[in-house]
């Protein structure tokens, strides 16, 4: 049974309870404070240590009624793609698909090569900066499995950073039958957790209702997003175009470019080998 998130922009009030709940449960450190001036968004982006991020989209329209301003908020998260760029790219096999259908980074396997970072079409996963092995070693003690949390808080954890981090879809909570922390904390049910098929049904009904009411509403990732990625296990209901929330309109699965790449390299190598053969051994005295 695959589980996932349905995050609905039309219900989000921008309280950031999801961001806080995620940080707390997963013991994620602060990324530092930067006053961006971009509406109420000082989180700015998902990172190796920020796994929920609330977008604050400000919209203004001027017509005969004067200036109307409106907000649309959306809690962004790792999409847990059906075909995940990060998972395909990972050379250590640290990134796996777990029994809940989520894309999970095993922190004790990852060696911090950073290839997943550039292979995510949504700019989600990132490296967690390494910190010293001394006093602050526990600073990046991220939660993983429930057992590890109980037994030794540091063993399977990303104790000293230097590895990749992103949403685990609360693997540890799911394993003991709990709802992910963000969905639990969301006061408006803008973040809903559940079985994917059921969530999709719910999302489609919700869009219909909204469209009837004359609200601009569209689903993102409930069905195939194209580019070889397939559908997203964490999908969204948007009240504006994807760009407004910093989501790609046409994401592409990076591995689809490999065949062409290898073919181009082979063609160049063959051309050079032929020229080289003529230059080095083309004088008829081949031994």
């Amino acid at each position, binding site marked *: 049974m695959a589980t996932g998130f349905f995050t609905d922009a039309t219900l989000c009030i921008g309280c950031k309870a999801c961001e806080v709940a995620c940080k707390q449960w997963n013991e994620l450190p602060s990324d530092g404070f930067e006053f*961006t001036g971009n509406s109420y968004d000082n989180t700015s982006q998902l990172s190796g240590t920020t796994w929920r991020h609330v977008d604050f989209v400000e919209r203004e329209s001027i017509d005969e009624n004067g200036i109307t301003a409106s907000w649309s908020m959306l809690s962004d998260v790792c999409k847990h793609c059906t075909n995940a760029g990060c998972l395909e790219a990972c050379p250590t096999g*640290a990134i796996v698909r777990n029994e809940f259908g989520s894309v999970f980074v095993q922190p004790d396997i990852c060696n911090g090569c950073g290839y997943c970072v550039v292979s995510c079409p949504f*700019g*989600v996963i990132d490296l967690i900066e390494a910190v010293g092995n001394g006093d602050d070693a526990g600073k990046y003690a991220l939660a993983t499995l429930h057992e590890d949390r109980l037994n030794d808080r540091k063993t399977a954890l990303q104790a000293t950073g230097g590895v990749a981090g992103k949403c685990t879809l609360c693997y540890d909570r799911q394993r003991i039958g709990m709802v992910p922390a963000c969905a639990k904390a969301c006061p408006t049910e803008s973040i809903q957790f559940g079985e994917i098929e059921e969530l999709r049904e719910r999302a489609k009904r919700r869009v219909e209702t909204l469209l009837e009411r004359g609200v601009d509403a569209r689903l993102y990732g409930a069905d195939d997003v194209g580019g070889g990625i397939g559908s997203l296990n964490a999908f969204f209901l948007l009240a504006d175009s994807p760009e407004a929330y910093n989501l790609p309109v046409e994401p*592409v699965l990076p591995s689809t*470019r490999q065949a062409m790449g290898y073919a*181009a390299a082979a063609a160049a190598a063959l051309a*050079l080998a032929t020229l080289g053969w003529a230059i*080095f051994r083309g004088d008829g005295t081949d031994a």
Partner: protein
Amino acid sequence: MKSYYDRPLLKGPHWGSNVVTYLFLGGIMGGLGLISLLSDDRPEPEMKKLRKATRYTAFALAAINPPILISHLGRPERFLNMLRIVKFKSPMSLGVWGLVLYSGAAGANALRELADDGVVPRMLKFVAPSATVPIQALLGAFMAGYTGVLISATAIPLWAAGKRHIPAFSVCSGAASASALATLLSTLQGNHDVIPRLERLEMAAAALEIALVADFRKRGGAVTAPLFEGRVGKRLRDFTIIGGIVVPFALNAIGGAFKLPKSIDALRSIAAATLTLVGGYVLRESLIEAGKLSANDPHVAFRQPS
């Protein structure tokens, strides 16, 4: 154009000069595999010398490059985790295996030369079959090319748009740099007779390289701006396009057309080879740096290259 406060959509590479060096040396290893094959089993003494020089150098680079690769990892002590699996969908995974196998073939070829030179017992010559020569050349082609595939198969728009060009000109750049390095080594050894051939190979590789780079610029459109414009573009133009391809090509052409006095000719050839090597390094560096800039522009990331 709509965007989210112009914030980057993608995350750029965390790679620095160690990765650039790895890519650069990987390209040279690839080119040396080709030269080692081209000079294999020839009666001329200058070819024999070249053969030995390329094989020893390739082996030395195969020993130097893995530590450089390892140094870029967030957790270097876990490097071996890359050897837990073979993943055909990950160029990074295949690349590590390519490096391991290349090192094996390079080691076998170096061992045969050592036996031939009498440094190790001659008997050992029979331990390493001569099939390792074409094998090293094949793996070398892979070594020089996979890094281009590796960056093209990412979400970074500039790299993604270069899926046809970047792997191909990476191979060319590797071959040109390897010829340049072999030229320098042959000059040091006083093996002057082999240099004209190396320089012709370098010219062939450079000509193909510049054609591919120009085509990439022409077809890539706005996505390629970070590579060809601004600070990175200027450096690429000065050190790679002009300094690393056009000038050495001209110097090599002069060397091929006129019979210069020996000492002047040696200076000419050293200058051409050195410039080519610098150009090869700057090419890789520019690709990585421009990739970071490309990742910062959300507008090119909303509709990603196919």
